């Protein structure tokens, strides 16, 4: 550049998702370098792209840094209790099946205190999209180990290092039958947005794990560095492999040579959860009344 005068600043008067944020609640409480804001943005972009009217989107969260998302997005939003976002959201999704329900919460909220609800919501294949922001620790309480914290990692509750193996969340959720399972880091903003959109459009349970830097809680005690440095680690180590064997996609952020596998791992079409309607079940065999009676008679004979 050769110009010597002041460069004309390019200032956007309006951000494309401004209308979808509760501007009167900003600035948010998140730390510099945190990845939750990026994830929230990806959610809102997917929401716009979904074509579903904004009034028909519902956001539910639990407790924690990620759980605060519900308080910033300008849709009907519910900030429930710690771990209970999924059953709370189930109540909405089952009662009003025409609504597009998204749960945005953290790894500790969804997989530790809410772990039982996670496996059951995935097993049932409840029609909702779950964005699980994994920052490898409990951030809101100031950096303690959780079920995703890598072994040996230091934290407020593990001054001598984590002693237990962390969850491999895509493997877990796939094992119980979720219709859609993906993992991205916040560096993969486009792919993440696309996955969220696929989740919203997919009947059944969609689970998207989002790896997010937490320079305050996880980065500092573990020499990971600032948010940008954790992002550089994702850049260097993430390998996109949609066909990865999910039992092999464990993450160890503290082992420099280990790859972090990301991708859209699972896309299946198991029927989404639908409670009984009280109507007589459709006969899968096209059985007639006669054959039903016949079977009943056979059953009696036994």
């Amino acid at each position, binding site marked *: 550049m050769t110009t010597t005068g002041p460069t004309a600043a390019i200032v956007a008067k309006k951000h494309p998702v401004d209308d979808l944020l509760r501007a009167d*609640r900003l600035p948010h409480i998140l730390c510099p370098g945190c990845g939750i804001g990026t994830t929230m943005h990806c959610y809102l972009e997917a929401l716009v792209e979904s074509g579903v009217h904004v009034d028909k989107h519902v956001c539910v969260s639990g407790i924690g840094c990620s759980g605060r998302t519900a308080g910033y997005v300008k849709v009907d939003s519910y900030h429930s209790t710690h771990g209970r976002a999924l059953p709370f959201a189930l109540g909405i999704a089952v009662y009003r099946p025409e609504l597009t329900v998204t749960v945005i919460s953290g790894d500790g909220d969804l997989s530790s205190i809410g772990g039982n609800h996670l496996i059951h919501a995935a097993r049932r294949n409840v029609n909702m999209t779950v964005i699980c922001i994994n920052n490898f620790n409990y951030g809101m309480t100031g950096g303690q180990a959780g079920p995703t914290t890598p072994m040996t990692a230091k934290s407020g509750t593990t001054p001598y290092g984590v002693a237990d193996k962390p969850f491999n969340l895509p493997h877990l959720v796939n094992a119980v039958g979720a219709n859609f399972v993906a993992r991205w880091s916040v560096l993969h903003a486009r792919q993440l947005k696309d996955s969220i959109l696929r989740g919203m459009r997919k009947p059944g349970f969609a689970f998207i794990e989002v790896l997010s830097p937490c320079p305050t809680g996880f980065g500092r005690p573990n020499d990971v560095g600032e948010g940008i440095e954790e992002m550089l680690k994702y850049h260097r180590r993430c390998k996109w492999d949609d066909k990865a064997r999910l039992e092999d996609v464990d993450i160890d952020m503290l082992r420099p040579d280990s790859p972090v596998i990301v991708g859209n791992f699972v896309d299946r079409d198991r029927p989404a959860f639908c409670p009984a309607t009280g109507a007589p079940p459709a006969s899968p065999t096209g059985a007639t009344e006669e054959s039903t009676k016949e079977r009943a008679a056979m059953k009696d004979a036994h």
Partner: protein
Amino acid sequence: MSTQSPSKPAATPRVRAGVHFMGGDFACAEGALAAGVDFFAGYPITPSTEVCEHLAQRLPQVGGKFVQMEDELASIAAIIGASAAGARSLTATSGPGFSLMMENIGLAAMMEVPCVIVDVMRGSPSTGLPTGVGQADIYQARWGSHGDYAVIAYCPSSPQECFDLTIQAFNAADKYRVPVMVMMDEVIGHMTEKVVIPPASEIPFTPRKRPSLPPGDSEYLPYMPDDDLVPPMAHAGEGYKIHMTGLTHDERGYPALSAEPHEKLVNRLVDKIRVHAADIVMHEDFLLDDAETIVVAFGCTARSARAAVNLARRQGVRAGLLRPITAWPFPTARIKELIAAGQVKQFVVPEINLGQVRREVERLTQLPVRRVHRAGGAMITPETILEAIVQ
């Protein structure tokens, strides 16, 4: 043998008007149906399982949603979510499950999401006596979740009341936007008696208070109360873009994490029930006009107490029964009134716990309050109560 085609089940009406011989748990479920319940989430637990099973069968027949959840933590969360989306929602449980629900009963109180929780009390604490009667969850209903808040709790004393009070519970929940408990006990839940179900047109219905302003009107504040201290409620999917949180919040529903909004909110949550106590409280008076001994008893124990009062009267002892139908709010005003009348010389409080309602009576009077307690597993007999009356 039925000639009905298996592909055409009989249309089962929501309100099964008529005279029935029905168990308390079933009557409770039928009461919920008559009240318009359209979402149930629950987990089987003795002695409330019949409520759950009966609704599993009946609710889908009338277009409602029944979900068996993974535990009681999930059950209560699901009914709050469904209610936030507009449902009349219900769960049913017993002591151990009731304990698990305490967390989100606090959430329902804080978010002001109406819902009904049936607790069929068994011997406790802990796993206690799963199939034996208890009445020891009365304080838990009021104080079980952390912090100050207020709830409404009804104590049916017959299957008929299981039906009637479950309807009442839904109406009160919607009117005041609170979690409402129906505190049955194992004896009442498993007792079979005559239950009269009136025609649908005679079922009392109090609608939930809804916003009068349209979505998008900046004047609408989700937590701005009316004069009755209850804010109108918008539902998910209506365009109001509401935010609900268990955090302390302001009139917009936004987190407001400081002392002043907290003071305002928590006081209102308690006051909205306190100032309406006279409208909410229900009790039954039996032979109180000239009573010198007043027996205060609820649930199945009130049935023994009524018999004991009759036995005492036959001996010429002027006894009467005050039966709290609402445990919470407690019929404090009525007891104070009876004390002020100057006739009563003593109270007798029989209950299947070690003195929960007794403490409520004791703190209102200097008169003797005789205790007739048992920990659980069996009813208190009329003779035992009579002994305390004539002592």
